[in-house]
C-alpha cells in the first residue's frame, strides 16, 4: 500500500514537471536572434569605381561581336535511269540533273516546306538529307516514277525510271563583326579599364558551335593578361523600312531602322565566372520627311554608326546596373533646360471675377 502511495506521488511529481516544461517558453538565445532575423543579402558584385580600377590596374578585352549565320542548301535532283535489255545483258544508263539553291534557313523552312515561293522551283517537300531517317527509302521524299517506253510483250524491253530527290543541307557560317564593338571599348576606357586587344578568332570550314567556346580562347591566351573578357554574340539584326503619315499634315516620314540585339557576358579570366550577363540592343535610324516622294536611299554606313553607338550606350547602362562600371562614365552635363521656372504670380495679369 505504501508502495502504491509512493508510486502515485512520484507519478504526480513527474507529470507536474512535464507540464511545467511544456508550458514554459524557451528563453531567447541572444546570440541566435540576429541569425534568425537577418535575411541573407542577394549576391551582388562589389561596385567597381574608376579610382579602384586605376589603383588595381584592371584590364578587359572586348571581343568583336560573334555571329552565326545559318543557311541551307536546297537540293533537287532528278535522275532518269534507263534500263535496256541487250544480248549481252541489261544495260543501265542514267542522267542526273541536280539543282542546288542556297537560301536562308528560315526561308527554306518557311517557303519550301510550307509551299512558299521556293516550292515552284522545287515542287516537292524538303527533308534534311543529313538525317538518316529522311534518306531512308521508306520515309524519304523521293518520288519514283516508273514508266516503260516499249510494250512489255516485246522481247527487248526498255524501262525508264525517273527518281526525284530533294532535301536541304544545313550550312552554318561563323565569324566576328568587326565594327560594332569599338564604341563599347571606348566607354570601358572612359570607365577606367585598360582595354586589351584580343586576337581575332578565325573560323574553319567545318566550324561548329565550339566557335563560341570563350573559355577555350581564354586558355589559349587570345586575350593576353586581361582580367575580364566582354564577350558578345549577335542574337538578331534587322533592317526595317517604314513610311508613316504625320497627323495634321500632308507629309509623311520614311524611317529606315537598323536594329541590333547582342547577348553579352563578362567573364573573369581567372575563375571563368560570369560576372555580368545581359542582352544589349542598339538602333540606328534615318528619317526623311516625304522620303517616299523623293526616292530616298538610306546610308548603311550611317545606320551602322548610329546602331553601334546606341548599342554601346545600352551596354554601359547594363554594366552599370550590374555594378561592373560606374554609371555614366564620361557623360556630358545633364541637360539643364528642363528646370522648372517658378515665378511669383503677377497679380496684374490675373483678374478675379465674382460669381
Amino acid at each position: 500500500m505504501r508502495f502504491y502511495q509512493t508510486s502515485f506521488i512520484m507519478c504526480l511529481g513527474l507529470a507536474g514537471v512535464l507540464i511545467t516544461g511544456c508550458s514554459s517558453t524557451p528563453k531567447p538565445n541572444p546570440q541566435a536572434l540576429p541569425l534568425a532575423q537577418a535575411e541573407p543579402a542577394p549576391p551582388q558584385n562589389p561596385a567597381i569605381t574608376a579610382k579602384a580600377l586605376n589603383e588595381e590596374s584592371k584590364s578587359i578585352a572586348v571581343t568583336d561581336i560573334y555571329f552565326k549565320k545559318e543557311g541551307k542548301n536546297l537540293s533537287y535532283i532528278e535522275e532518269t535511269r534507263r534500263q535496256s535489255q541487250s544480248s549481252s545483258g541489261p544495260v543501265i544508263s542514267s542522267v542526273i540533273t541536280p539543282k542546288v539553291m542556297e537560301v536562308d534557313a528560315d526561308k527554306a523552312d518557311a517557303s519550301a516546306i510550307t509551299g512558299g515561293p521556293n516550292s515552284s522551283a522545287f515542287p516537292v517537300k524538303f527533308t534534311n538529307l543529313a538525317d538518316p531517317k529522311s534518306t531512308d527509302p521508306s520515309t524519304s521524299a523521293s518520288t519514283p516514277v516508273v514508266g516503260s517506253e516499249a510494250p512489255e510483250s516485246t522481247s527487248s524491253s526498255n524501262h525508264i525510271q525517273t527518281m526525284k530527290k530533294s532535301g536541304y543541307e544545313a550550312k552554318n557560317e561563323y565569324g566576328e563583326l568587326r565594327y560594332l564593338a569599338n564604341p563599347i571599348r571606348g566607354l570601358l576606357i572612359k570607365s577606367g579599364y585598360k582595354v586589351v586587344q584580343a586576337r581575332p578568332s578565325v573560323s574553319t570550314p567545318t566550324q561548329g558551335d565550339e566557335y563560341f567556346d570563350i573559355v577555350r580562347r581564354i586558355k589559349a591566351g587570345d586575350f593576353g593578361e586581361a582580367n575580364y573578357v566582354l564577350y558578345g554574340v549577335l542574337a538578331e539584326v534587322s533592317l526595317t523600312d517604314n513610311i508613316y503619315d504625320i497627323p495634321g499634315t500632308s507629309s509623311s516620314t520614311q524611317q529606315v531602322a537598323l536594329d541590333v540585339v547582342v547577348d553579352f557576358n563578362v567573364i573573369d579570366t581567372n575563375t571563368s565566372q560570369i560576372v555580368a550577363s545581359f542582352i544589349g540592343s542598339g538602333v540606328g535610324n534615318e528619317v526623311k520627311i516625304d522620303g517616299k516622294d523623293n526616292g530616298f536611299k538610306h546610308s548603311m554606313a550611317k545606320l551602322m554608326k548610329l546602331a553601334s553607338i546606341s548599342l554601346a550606350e545600352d551596354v554601359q547602362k547594363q554594366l552599370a546596373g550590374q555594378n561592373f562600371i560606374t554609371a555614366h562614365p564620361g557623360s556630358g552635363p545633364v541637360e539643364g533646360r528642363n528646370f522648372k521656372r517658378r515665378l511669383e504670380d503677377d497679380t496684374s495679369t490675373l483678374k478675379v471675377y465674382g460669381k
Partner: protein
Amino acid sequence: MTMTLNHQKMNVLALLITSLSLAACSSGPQVRYGDSKAVETVNADYGSTDLQMIAEAMTRSLLQSKAISASKDAPIVTLAEVKNKTAEYIDTRVITDKIRTQLVKSGQVRFAVSVTEMPNQVEELKRQNQSGLYKNSTISKTGNMQGAQYRIEGSIASIVKNTKDVKDVFYVFNLNLINNESGLIEWADEKEIRKTATR
C-alpha cells in the same frame, strides 16, 4: 426781276446743299479705345468677358493641380481639341491659346507644338535637314522633337432658354489634363457662366 430773285434763291440753296454735303463727308465714325478687360454686356452671346473668365479660372486651377505643382521639372504639355457643343460659333482655339499663354508665362509648364502647328514645324525641319543649305552643326535635326507628357482637351456646351422678354444662357466649359502614356485624367475642372438678357 422775279426771274433774278428766283436765280438768287436757287444759288443760295445750291451753296447750302454743297456745304452740308462737304460737312457730312468730312466727319467720320468716332473711334475710341476701351479697356480690353472691361465687362462686356452687349448681349447674352458668348463674348470677350466669357473668354477671359474661362481662361483665367482654368489657368489658376491647372497650376494648382498636383500634376503640375508637384512635378519636379516643368512638364511638357500639348493642346488638343476643345469641342464646341454650343449652337453658337465659338473659336475654341482662342480659349486654349489664351490658357497656353498664361501657363507658359507662369514658367511651370512647357508646351510642345500641337497638331495645328505641325505643318509649319515639319516644313521647317524639312527645310533645315533636307535642303542641303545649312551648316550641319547648326541644323535642328529630325528625330529630336520632344513628346508631350500631357495633353489638354475639353469642351464647351450651353443651355439656352428664351421667353418674349428674357434670354437665359448657361455655359459650361470643361477642361481635362490627360497623361498621354497612361491615359489617366490627371486633372479636370469646369467653369460655369450664367448670362441673362432682359428687354
